[in-house]
């Protein structure tokens, strides 16, 4: 098999047993890699009813066929498990060295079960894998963990994916960090690592990556690199994703004060333009990336002097405007806390904004916040709330550590403004002024996710009436999801999606790497299969139509701001659009795949209707 090593590691944390298993070409072609492999592994191997934090939960780490090849932005991996945050399928994709390094070490993936009796890390190197003591790394930040493992093993080239204290403390928001600035975010994969007593995965490989048609692939890649320097990626290169701040503010869809508004009066102060001018020290790339979007901020002066972090739109927006904060220094500091202590910046921002709204409404008292004046716009309070949340410190930390949905449950009030879907915090796109986006986010298998279908694009580009919904929006989400399932399974960076002329060109990349003869029809069918596999996992764990709705604020409160004033989602329109989506997917009105569809896709039909 070309493109794949055809092998993966199985690690039992309880017994310490490690062995190599085979990846069949049939599975590879059917599920492609990355997201497809996660869905396939989890559906088949997580036992029914298994608690996400129990040893029975399965944590997998998968690459795709293009990792380690010169395909632009292809060094990407995914981690997946049953999510402690949502109870459904959990996964996050990160760029960076661990992906290509694992391939060079001789494996496509790692499937981990059980729980170690003390803190360990997994070291993988050229055909060799072992669990090593990590007690000395207990409580260390992700950045320190990377350094300390390299030092222990005297090898600066080792790539490390690790959890911070938040993962060890089993925060539902805990993520995994590699290469300092890249994260397996969302849905608590760091929490699952913590539950298995797995502090880190350290990888070093020096083998060759086998590609079917290397010369031809390199010829295509050279062309793709040039396109990566063209207009399709200019936004990411120049301002980075924070370019969205002013764009979204103009459109009235920049979540502000916990999604109450869609414009922020101090947006200029925290715009991508301002950030580039005052904060960005360097723009960096992940391995194999000709774009470089990682804008590294270094705070030179003021109360946050010395803070360093890579700041993207989602992090900036949700820890910034959505908390009423415009100080880029405070935002940079908060992102650094999240990255090093190990929680997701999106969930962190939306959880703090929830707490701020609860505080302003008098549901949280100063006693509950350990004395913090947690009103919107208090940057120091935002930073401190993030810190205590990461470390589960004090009353406020204990309340917020597992996200806003659980905080509202613990408080016994405030759930109506916890901005979540499937208990996962909403990305930085306002609900009522981007309604196709809302349908896509709420139906996403991972929960509140902007990355599963890119359903915000038709809204932002003005291709549809973004203040209303109708049945036809289901098709927009359906098409987006199928293509994104392919992209997330290959795995390539979504920022490169604009450089490919059409789906045939994705096929060309896959075929040159694997030697197959995949057509674009097969490719999109594969995407549909993968998405249904992920959905089936959710069905196995009790998913129904009710899980595919946005938070109550979308229906119950009108927006108030200059651009999108009065915007609201009409419940009957949402119901109709959701039914339209299910119909497009050939799922029942309850969102369950039909047996006929599953059979056609070659999937297990037992949970179908």
């Amino acid at each position, binding site marked *: 098999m070309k493109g794949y090593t055809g092998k993966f590691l199985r690690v039992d944390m309880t017994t310490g047993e490690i062995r190599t298993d085979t990846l069949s070409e049939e599975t590879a072609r059917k599920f492609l890699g990355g997201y497809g492999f996660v869905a396939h592994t989890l559906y088949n191997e997580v036992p029914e009813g298994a608690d996400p934090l129990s040893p029975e939960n399965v944590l997998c780490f998968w690459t795709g066929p293009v990792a380690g090849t010169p395909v632009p932005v292809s060094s990407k991996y995914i981690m997946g498990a049953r999510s402690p945050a949502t109870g459904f399928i959990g996964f996050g994709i990160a760029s960076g060295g661990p992906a290509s390094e694992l391939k060079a070490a001789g494996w496509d993936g790692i499937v981990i079960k059980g729980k170690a009796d003390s803190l360990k890390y997994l070291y993988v190197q050229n055909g060799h894998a072992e669990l090593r003591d990590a007690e000395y790394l207990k409580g260390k930040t992700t950045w320190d963990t990377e350094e300390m493992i390299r030092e222990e093993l005297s090898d600066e080239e080792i790539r490390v994916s690790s959890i911070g204290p938040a993962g060890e403390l089993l925060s539902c928001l805990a993520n995994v960090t590699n290469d300092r600035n890249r994260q397996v975010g969302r849905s608590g994969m760091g929490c699952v690592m913590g539950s298995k007593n797995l502090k880190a995965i350290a990888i070093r490989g020096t*083998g060759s990556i086998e590609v079917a048609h290397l010369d031809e692939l390199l010829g295509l890649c050279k062309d793709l690199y040039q396109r990566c320097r063209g207009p399709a990626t200019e936004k990411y290169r120049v301002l980075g994703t924070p370019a969205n701040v002013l764009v979204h503010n103009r459109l009235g869809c920049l979540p502000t004060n916990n999604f109450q508004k869609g414009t922020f009066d101090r947006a200029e102060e925290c715009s991508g333009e301002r950030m580039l001018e005052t904060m960005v020290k360097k723009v960096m790339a992940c391995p194999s990336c000709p774009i470089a979007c990682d804008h590294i901020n270094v705070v030179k002066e003021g109360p946050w002097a010395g803070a360093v972090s890579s700041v993207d739109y989602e992090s900036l927006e949700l820890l910034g405007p959505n908390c009423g904060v415009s100080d880029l220094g405070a935002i940079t500091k908060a992102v650094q806390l999240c990255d090093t202590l190990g929680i997701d910046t999106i969930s962190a921002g939306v959880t703090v904004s929830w707490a701020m709204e609860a505080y302003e409404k008098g549901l949280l008292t100063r006693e509950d916040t350990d004395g913090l004046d947690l009103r919107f716009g208090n940057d120091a309070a935002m930073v401190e709330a993030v810190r205590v949340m990461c470390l589960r410190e004090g009353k406020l930390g204990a309340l917020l550590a597992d996200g806003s949905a659980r905080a509202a449950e613990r408080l016994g009030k405030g759930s109506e403004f916890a901005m979540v879907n499937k208990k996962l915090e909403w990305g930085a796109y306002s609900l009522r002024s981007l309604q196709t986006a809302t349908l896509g986010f709420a139906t996403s298998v991972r929960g509140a996710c902007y990355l599963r279908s890119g359903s915000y694009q038709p809204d932002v580009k003005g291709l549809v009436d973004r203040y209303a919904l109708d049945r036809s929006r289901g098709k927009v989400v359906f098409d987006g999801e199928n293509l994104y399932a392919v992209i997330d399974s290959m795995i390539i960076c979504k920022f490169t999606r604009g450089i490919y002329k059409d789906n045939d060109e994705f096929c060309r990349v896959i075929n040159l790497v694997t030697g197959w003869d995949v057509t674009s029809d097969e490719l999109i069918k594969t995407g549909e299969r993968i998405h249904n596999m992920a959905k089936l996992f959710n069905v196995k764990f009790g998913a129904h139509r009710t899980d595919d709705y946005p938070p109550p604020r979308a229906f119950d409160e009108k927006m108030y701001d200059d651009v999108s004033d009065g915007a609201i989602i009409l419940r009957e329109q949402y119901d109709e659009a959701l039914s339209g989506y299910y119909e497009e997917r050939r799922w029942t009105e309850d969102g369950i795949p039909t047996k006929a569809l599953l059979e056609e896709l070659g999937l297990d039909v037992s949970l179908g209707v």
Partner: protein
Amino acid sequence: MEAKKIIVCDTDKCSGCELCEYVCSIFHEKTVNWSKSRIRHVRIEPTFDIAIACRKCEEPLCIKACPRDAIIMVEDGSVQVEKDKCNGCGWCIEACNFGALKLDWDKKVVFACDFCEGESGPKCVEFCPYDALEFTTLDQVGREAGVKAFKRIIEELE
């Protein structure tokens, strides 16, 4: 004699993508294996990246260090490792100030940049997506540094 040309890296432009390493290994080893690249990317956190290859030193320390006289200088000023003589002891790697030599994990011999020919210099230069790598003479590097410094002064005066 033609002025000697080397591969220089503009550290402001280098983003650390490591595609130079991918491309180098593909052209020299006919496979993707960045550990066998003749050019090496180094990142110093949080914000520094550089890619370094052989500097064509006037009196190469690698040649002096080799106990088996396995390294010779060739016409363009680069060094060549004679595979039959090299036993992979690595003294040359230790001696080089730039980390420009590497040990092949499989063949157990040392290798260095051979300044292969691409469109605008060696292949790594040709493929660098950020135009951070340049194949140029030290004279030119010095001249450009001077121009840069002068422009900065003018900007400050304005």
